[in-house]
């Protein structure tokens, strides 16, 4: 436990914000990363995302409160990032990427840090602004998302020892892989559902006969 949440590892996590290339390098080649910390990052983001949708100020909130399903939204973050990690790992394995699965997970988690840190204060601020000042809130969010995107790109570049162009290509391929993954899993689920239906109908048939 100590190992995962040591002061040093936490410092490296926040170091990602200011010196992303160096920090991701250390994370990859000197094992300064921590998967639990990455998961906590994503968890915080997932919670804050739903909190933002519910508690963002009336003037900027365009979400129907009756349509919010907190559990589904939170788990979708994990599913999406999980798919990204698996897809990226699958692609980079074939494209001479040096990153291991745990590096990819760490990068994906740590990259969410800027938006996680900004979302909370932004939600708070949104309750004290009028419509004319909504731009402040929007700019905050845009900064957070852009920063996160840059971190993700730099992280993927660094842990796999890629050039920028190659990193961009792998990200595109990752996206395609995720689509294929979703397609196959839907197919499998449907198949399993049909198998279940088949056995269930046999079961009911037997029950009604005897």
């Amino acid at each position, binding site marked *: 436990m100590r190992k995962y949440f040591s002061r040093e590892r936490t410092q490296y996590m926040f170091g990602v914000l200011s010196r992303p290339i160096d920090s991701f390098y250390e994370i990859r080649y000197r094992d300064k990363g921590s998967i639990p910390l990455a998961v906590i990052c994503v968890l915080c983001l997932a919670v804050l995302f739903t909190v933002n949708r519910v508690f963002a100020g*009336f*003037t900027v909130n365009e979400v*129907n409160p*009756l*349509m919010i399903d907190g559990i589904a939204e939170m788990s979708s973050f994990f599913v999406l990032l999980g798919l990204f990690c698996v897809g990226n790992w699958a692609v980079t394995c074939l494209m001479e990427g040096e990153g291991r699965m745990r590096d990819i997970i760490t990068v994906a988690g740590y990259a969410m840090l800027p938006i996680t840190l900004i979302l909370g204060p932004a939600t708070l601020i949104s309750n*004290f602004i*009028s*419509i*004319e000042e909504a731009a402040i809130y929007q700019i905050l969010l845009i900064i957070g998302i852009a920063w996160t995107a840059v971190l993700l790109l730099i992280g993927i570049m660094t842990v796999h020892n890629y050039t920028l162009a190659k990193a961009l290509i792998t990200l595109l391929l990752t996206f395609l892989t995720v689509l294929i993954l979703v397609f196959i899993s839907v197919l499998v689920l449907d198949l399993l559902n049909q198998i279940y239906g088949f056995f269930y109908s046999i079961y009911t048939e037997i029950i009604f006969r005897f």
Partner: protein
Amino acid sequence: MQAVYATQKKKTIVTVLVLTVLIMTLLPLQAAKAADSVPYDTYTYDYWETIIFTPAPYIPGETISGVSLGVGALNDPQGIYVASDDSVYIADTGNNRILVLEQDLKTVRDVIVTFDNNGTTDSFNKPRGVMVTGDGTIYVADTENRRVIALAGGKVVKTIENPQAEILGENFDFVPLKVTVDYAGRVFVIARDMFQGIMTFGEDGEFIGFYGTINVTITLWERFWRALSTQEQRARGRLFIPTVFTGLDVDPAGFVYASNIDGDGKQAVRRLNPKGEDVLRKGSNEHVGGDIALFGSSASAYSGPSNIIDVAYRGNGMYSLLDSRRGRIFTYDYEGNLLYIFGGMGQLAGTFRQPTAIAAQKDRVLALDAVRNELITFEETLYGELINEAVALRYGGDEAQAVEVWQQVLRLNENFELANAGIGKAYLTAGENELAMEYLKKGMDKQNYSIAFKRWRNDILKENIGWILTAALCTITAFTVVRVVLKKRKGSVQDEGGDVFDA
């Protein structure tokens, strides 16, 4: 044993009797309740475009078939107009006549079958539209005779037929369906298959031009496919022609309300100024097209765009639209906010089978049905009356008085956003920012909420700016003092150390 049985029997009989009496007294109550319920859904859409059921704003009144009036049954009636003296004119299309009813709808004032056309006796052929001006001149769209005639005192005073103009082409077939006239004597005619717009005619019956043309919008996607497809495919594909107008009404200021069928269900009515430009206000959700297109099985009774076939100006900036697909009547205020929806298809009294036209007679709404061959009236309830009253007060600029009425509306339907927003706006004007915020939030009025919020925030800042600044100043001073003291101490410690070292 027998005696016990007997007493028990007596007891049962007594209970049964008591119960019967109880039920008998309760039954009329039940019956009254049943009469209160209406044979259709009454609802509105809220800010999130979900269906909110409301109390009935209007309940079915009478159904008038013509037989009770002693003039024989109506046959395929297509047009209705309420004159300024509240008498009702019905274009009884299938019977080739115009019926004029007194305002109580119980007596017939006149049945126009024949009239004097410059000395010869003439008659109508399937008249579909009727309109009466303030001086009593009756304009009739005499559809199958391909003309519009104006009657005064049983004589034709004006005939519009076979209009000639370059843009109309050589073999133009003039088939008028609806007609209306503004205070300046301009005649507006909806003609069959006339996609260019409403035809306007001058006082002498000469063709002036088209009015209120609806422009076709082609999406980028459709343009892309058209670019890809061949000539033959394009010829067989869907035609991009403007939708035609379906119904007309004119308000006292001379603005023409024209309904049209909108496949997207967004805008099914236009308010045209004398130049023919649409000046309709569309409300916060930009939607004046009847039902908001909803998809999915649970909302199937409401899904798909409405088929708006007529419009009636209701006074005070309000207007009602008639949907022929689901038999609903939608009423909007002058800002384009949806007020209430009532009406429906069915077999019961007060429902439609094929609605064709709508008109407003004071507080009553009148509608024609071409399959039932009936005139159906709708009477306002307390709920509808209060909304109408509040909208009228607001239209007249009397927001403060409207508040009391809105409060009563809220007592009947506390989900009514317009009422909340109305009250909130009044509080905003009165400077009650906190109350205004509460009501405007319930009314989903973000713009005005923002204003109220800003004022409230400023007030709080103004009240507390004194101690906030003092506290800030104190903190800064305290920090500096502590810092200086710490520095000095460190310095003195070093000095002492130095002393010690020296010693």
